[in-house]
């Protein structure tokens, strides 16, 4: 608005008009550059910086980042890029000119794609925790991706609701198609939600290539409710969620129950059905063609270090791959992991995902 006042003085003469329009143009340019200056114009990546491409769930205390920067001598630049699928797809699309030096957040449902598309360079931390091996990516990609955290996607039930109704809660995937639980289950859809996809994969692992579609037909016939995301299912429809909905069975995580301990209470009002879980493992790796491969390797080392591993549950709500990293008390007590979670070969998931999702969408109207 000010520029109208200022440039308005140049009136009448041709020269005035020229200057005025020029000033307007100049102002536009100045404004554009001013914006960039204000927010820090450091675009060039010097070898003193290491850039991490990660998912939106990245949440790490400042002290930890400072610790990494001090120990490694690199400044950490974090680029969140959506969920695991988005991160993977962006890396595939920018393979010729990578977005950063390292990646963290590719999970076992997208790992196959990242491995096949050659976006990763080989690296294995030399002194990572021994338990890394338990979570290693099976097949060819083992040397490309380092496991960092895991979580079990499980069906959760509202224990209070079932106790009040005097009904025995379900225990298995098969139970969910039992008419006794008709209209009680809500889950996010597989096409739009990553826990939703994990649940679909659990059913495929349980019922096999030939049986899962029948299972889903039965599930649909038993009036399952499908939402687009976890937030919706848990926070609106679940009877023990903040929205106090009308469905006492929900798809969530094995780590969800501790969050339902009421104020002043001593134990959760919900529990996870540990025979229904699909294990999601998240990996980190060095990007092929990284400008700072040494920094990327230091970063991967840091992600499996004891300090970082210990911080994972409280900050990102996932379990550490280091089985010696202490768990928060509530987790240790109320968030046991599945003993025999469902798993599928990441290569197979990658090869079949599109077909499975299309078939699933046709079945469910999604």
């Amino acid at each position: 608005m000010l520029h109208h006042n200022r440039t308005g003085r140049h009136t009448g003469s041709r020269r005035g008009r020229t200057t005025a329009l020029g000033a307007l143009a100049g102002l536009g340019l100045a404004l554009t550059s001013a914006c960039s200056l204000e927010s820090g114009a450091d675009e060039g990546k010097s070898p003193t910086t290491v850039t991490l491409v990660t998912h939106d769930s990245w949440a790490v205390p400042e002290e930890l980042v400072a610790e990494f920067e001090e120990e490694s001598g690199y400044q950490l630049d974090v680029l969140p890029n959506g969920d695991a699928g988005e991160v993977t797809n962006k890396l595939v699309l920018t393979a010729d000119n990578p977005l950063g030096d390292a990646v963290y957040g590719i999970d076992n449902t997208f790992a196959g794609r990242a491995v096949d598309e050659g976006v990763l360079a080989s690296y294995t931390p030399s002194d990572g925790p021994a338990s890394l091996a338990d979570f290693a990516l099976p097949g060819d990609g083992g040397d490309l991706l380092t496991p960092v955290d895991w979580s079990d996607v499980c069906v959760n039930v509202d224990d209070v609701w079932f106790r009040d109704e005097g009904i025995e809660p379900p225990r298995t995937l098969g139970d969910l198609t039992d008419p006794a639980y008709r209209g009680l289950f809500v889950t996010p859809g597989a096409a739009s939600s990553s826990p939703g996809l994990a649940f679909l994969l659990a059913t495929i692992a349980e019922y096999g290539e030939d049986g899962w579609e029948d299972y889903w037909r039965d599930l649909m016939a038993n009036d399952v409710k499908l939402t687009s995301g976890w937030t919706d299912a848990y926070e609106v429809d679940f009877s023990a969620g903040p929205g106090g909905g009308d469905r006492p069975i929900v798809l969530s995580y094995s780590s969800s129950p501790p969050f339902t301990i009421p104020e002043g209470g001593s134990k959760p009002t919900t529990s996870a059905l540990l025979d229904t879980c699909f294990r999601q493992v998240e990996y980190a790796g060095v990007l092929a063609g990284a400008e700072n491969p040494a920094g990327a390797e230091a970063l991967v080392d840091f992600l499996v270090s004891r300090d970082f591993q210990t911080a994972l549950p409280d900050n990102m709500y996932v379990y550490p791959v280091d089985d010696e990293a202490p768990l928060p008390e509530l987790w240790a007590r109320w968030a046991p992991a599945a003993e025999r979670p469902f798993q599928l070969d990441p290569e197979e998931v990658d090869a079949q995902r599109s077909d499975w999702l299309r078939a699933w969408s046709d079945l469910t109207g999604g």
Partner: protein
Amino acid sequence: MRLPSRSRLATAGLVGLAALIPLTVVVIFFVVPVVGMVGRGFFPDGELDVAGVADALLRPRVAHVVWFTLWSSSLATALTVLLGVPTAFVLYRLRFPGQALLRGLVTVPFVLPTVVVGVAFRTLLAGTGPLAFLGWDGTPAAIVAALVFFNLAVVVRTVGAHWEGLDRRREEAAAALGASPAQVLRTVTLPALVPAVVSAGTVVFLFCATAFGVVLTLGGVEYATVETEIYLLTTQFLDLQGAAALCVLQIVFVVVLLGLTRRVGQGSASVQRTSTAVRRTPAGRDVPALLVSALVVVAVAAPLVSLVVRSLRVDGSWSLEHYRALDGTTGVLSVPVTQALENSLRVAVDATLLAVVLGGTVAVLVTRRLRTPVARRAAATFDAVFMLPLGVSAVTVGFGLLVALDTPPLDFRGSPWLVPVAQALVAMPLVVRLLVPALRSVDERQREAAASLGAGTLRVLRTVDLPHARRALLAATGFAFAVSLGEFGATSFLSRPETVTLPVAVYQLVSRPGEDNFGAALAASVVLGLVTAAVVVLVERVRGGSLGGLS
């Protein structure tokens, strides 16, 4: 007939120069990324494969998705206009206490994070909610209702800003000549409003057609639009051919829509405007309009009130705990919510400046009277280019920025200032749409008279155009600020952990378990709504101030 003189040529050159700046911004930050992404779909292995894209277009699912997008957006737009125009009348033509607050109130939904509002809406509509009896949960009715809720502000503010400045004498003259109030409305008032209504309707339609969070949250998995489909194809399936096909469709939508609206919008006559607001106290004949706006206010306020109430409830009692949590790091966020708010405001200032300067330049250029058909067509194309960001998928642009802007001198990946630029691209079309009707209503003879008296281009702008467009300019500034504060789609792609904006922070909070995170998300949304309402009310206060002195 005037011959092109040196001075005319010089002016033409300057016009070209002025056009070049906004054009450069839109080409670099929008056209190049979109072409980059769509190009990947058309050239899957480095070779042109039109058949592949055409096949993708012929999938049965596409027709289904396109049809749903078209009818839900059209219905939502029609309802928004039907409810918005009477509300604009009541809020901008009548005078009663509390009006400024109500204007702020109707703007709030526009900036609220769709995830949270979607959840708030669903809590009302789903199983145990107070509105469950409607049976709207997971149906198109809920989607359309939410689209109307979010977009009412566009119609109310665009039409309101235009209506407020209309000279009342024409209506009074018609009435004095014996026209009934209905006749005055039909023959004098409404024709004068057509350009503003068309402008607002166009923007609303594009917002609806590219709505993302609302459709996902309220439609469940059953209802897909072109936008949600592009998101799935790009982020999950990596089906770039399918995504490219739909993106081309979106571009066609925008072009056709602008072609259609241009015809309607341009025939309107210039109108006399006054620089001071002429508002009157409500009378008996205003009852229908008052009833509609009362309905609108209640419908807008209900979800907002439920949001506020829920943000104040902790374990069944009233508490400010969720608000107190906003200045601490919760573990989910790398910065406190208060820092996110500061980031939001900082970015919004940059984005608003950019959007208003660039959008203002575009609006001035496309409303100049042009004498040759070629020049008119060029101006129409120029105009359309700036509308495209509203109608094209944020996912395509977001991915495109990474794919296309990766080599110097255009290596912008990860630049922090991409955020204000991206927000400005979303706000700019709104600024243009708000200013164009006002500038078009200027009688060209006034400009010519001023020019013949020796006024230069800018003096004409200042003394003729600005007084006409003053309100629209204020409205545009407030709106650009609101767009920036509420923008989520592009921002979530571009922001860094340390510079997250408030909507991004809300989204992160709401996607985590725990009542505390959920409560903090609600509280942060309320803060966002309050800040927006405050900004809008403040901008309205500016009138009569320094700008008024110019007219």
